[in-house]
């Protein structure tokens, strides 16, 4: 079985977000990059499938050289080889074209695992666009995946207020999230993995021509909150008054 893991590399979740160049660029100074947290659940799922059923895992990232340390981490956790398409992924459509092109050229992946959303530009669309461009089946917000005999697969997806289980077949693209594997099952690199990762192949390929559909003009920080109104714990009537008359929420 061949698994393709689509990895988005994003600023560490504790990062302070700033903008430069007249607020037209994201300020990368001091930013640590990590595997997109939603993608991590899918990566562990891929490794579990490999351990149980046998599989070859390729990690694919569209990104510049600065993502390579994160790609190495994915190799250390258990991917077998890596491919980086060497371009800055500024537009989701453009990024999806790159990934779809790679998939069409190889055309032998049984399962393509993505995350439901990158925690940088929060698009929630690259994997879905790839599915359409390649004609592959697609299920989003996946919180469970069980491979059955004869290529069928049972996939649980989160719906508002619950979950829905869908029966379908491979090949398939999923957008994973927390729940796909348990939090405590999440893999982190160990020493042996890190050593082995150094020898695993990381192929860098050039992007294909593609247009863009959206463009960021400028950034801004959200308006700072006004200062907090503290209410004494022995004067909760005042709190109720504020919530009722000022905030008008109760």
């Amino acid at each position: 079985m061949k698994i393709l893991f689509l990895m988005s590399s994003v600023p560490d979740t504790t990062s302070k977000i700033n903008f430069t160049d007249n607020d037209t660029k994201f300020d990368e100074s001091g930013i640590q990059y990590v595997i997109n947290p939603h993608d991590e659940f899918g990566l562990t799922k891929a490794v579990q499938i490999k351990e149980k059923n046998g599989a070859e895992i390729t990690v694919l990232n569209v990104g510049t050289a600065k993502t390579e340390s994160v790609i190495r981490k994915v190799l250390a956790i258990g991917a077998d080889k890596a491919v980086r398409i060497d371009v800055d992924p500024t537009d989701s459509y453009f990024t999806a074209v790159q990934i779809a092109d790679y998939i069409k050229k190889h055309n032998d992946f049984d399962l393509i695992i993505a995350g439901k959303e990158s925690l940088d530009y929060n698009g929630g669309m690259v994997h879905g666009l790839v599915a359409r461009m390649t004609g592959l089946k697609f299920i989003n917000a996946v919180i469970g995946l069980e491979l059955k005999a004869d290529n069928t697969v049972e996939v649980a997806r989160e719906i508002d207020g619950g979950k829905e289980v869908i029966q379908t077949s491979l090949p398939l693209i999923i957008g994973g999230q927390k729940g796909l594997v348990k939090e405590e099952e999440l893999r982190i690199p160990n020493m042996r993995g890190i050593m082995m990762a150094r020898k695993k192949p990381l192929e860098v390929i050039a992007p294909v021509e593609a247009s863009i559909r959206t463009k960021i003009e400028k950034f801004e920080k959200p308006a700072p909150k006004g200062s907090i109104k503290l209410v004494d714990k022995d004067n909760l009537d005042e709190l109720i008054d504020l919530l009722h008359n000022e905030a008008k929420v109760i």
Partner: protein
Amino acid sequence: MSILIYVESQNGKVAKSAKELASYARAYADKTGQDVVAVGAGLDDADELFKYGVNKVLKVNNESLKQFNAFAHAQMIADAAKTSEAKIVLISSSNDAVYLGPVLADLLEAGYVSHVISLPEEKDVFVVKRKVFSNKGIAYTEILTDKKLLRIAKNSFGLIENAVEGTIESFEPDVDLSVYEVYKVVNVEKATGKISLSDADIVVSAGRGMKGPENWGMIEELADVLGAATACSKPVADLGWRPHQEHVGQTGKQVAPNLYIAVGISGAIQHLAGVNGSKNMLVINNDPEAPFFKAADYGVVGDAFEVVPKLIEKLKAFKQQ
């Protein structure tokens, strides 16, 4: 020309999110001299949409389409866009809408923007504001394509009543229903009776400060009194004190209610990233240095075990007035 909205329903009734889409569409339609058209399957109370400014509802009665399938519904919306000559299509940020978004964007060949929080700016290029970096930034994003698909962030525009005379037309979209066989739904589990976290106007959330699952009675009672949904921080879900569906934050659910109440939650950056779209935040914490106090609108410094029961009593009295 028209603006098209995708209307989701709950038990056959127009979802609140659809009314927000209608409010948004109406405001933009008024500026640009367009009509607002809505499409949806089922919709027993489709005329509700007129209140929020929808001129025409394309009501789909096909039994299969009453069940959600991302591919079928994306085709349904794309066909409605064609019929109504819509250049701008709006969807909500529900799980279903998020799922069908990219499929629809591809069918429409539209530039697609998520987490939209403003009407398009009035200038010669089409620019909307959207939330990025998990609410830590706002990006003014230009859409370069002729057709545009916008996913509106929850509670970012609000419900604005603006009644118009509308019509309901039955609509038979051109949809390949075989996708219902390709993706066969074999089981659905949905909490009934409870207020769903994604729709709730008020959310009562609690963290590790509650010490253990046995202490959640007062959190549930507070939620009951307020007609609120309950939520929790990540460690609380990881510890198994509360179900995972309640985990809010950067890696959990994103919520944006009118009031978010955080009890015994420190206010870590990853937690705030999922909740700071809320209109108002109230924090109850015994540590005045807790970071949440920097992000909230209202705060009570005190022991939750003392403050929450008192607050419940006061609220009960207030509700009886």
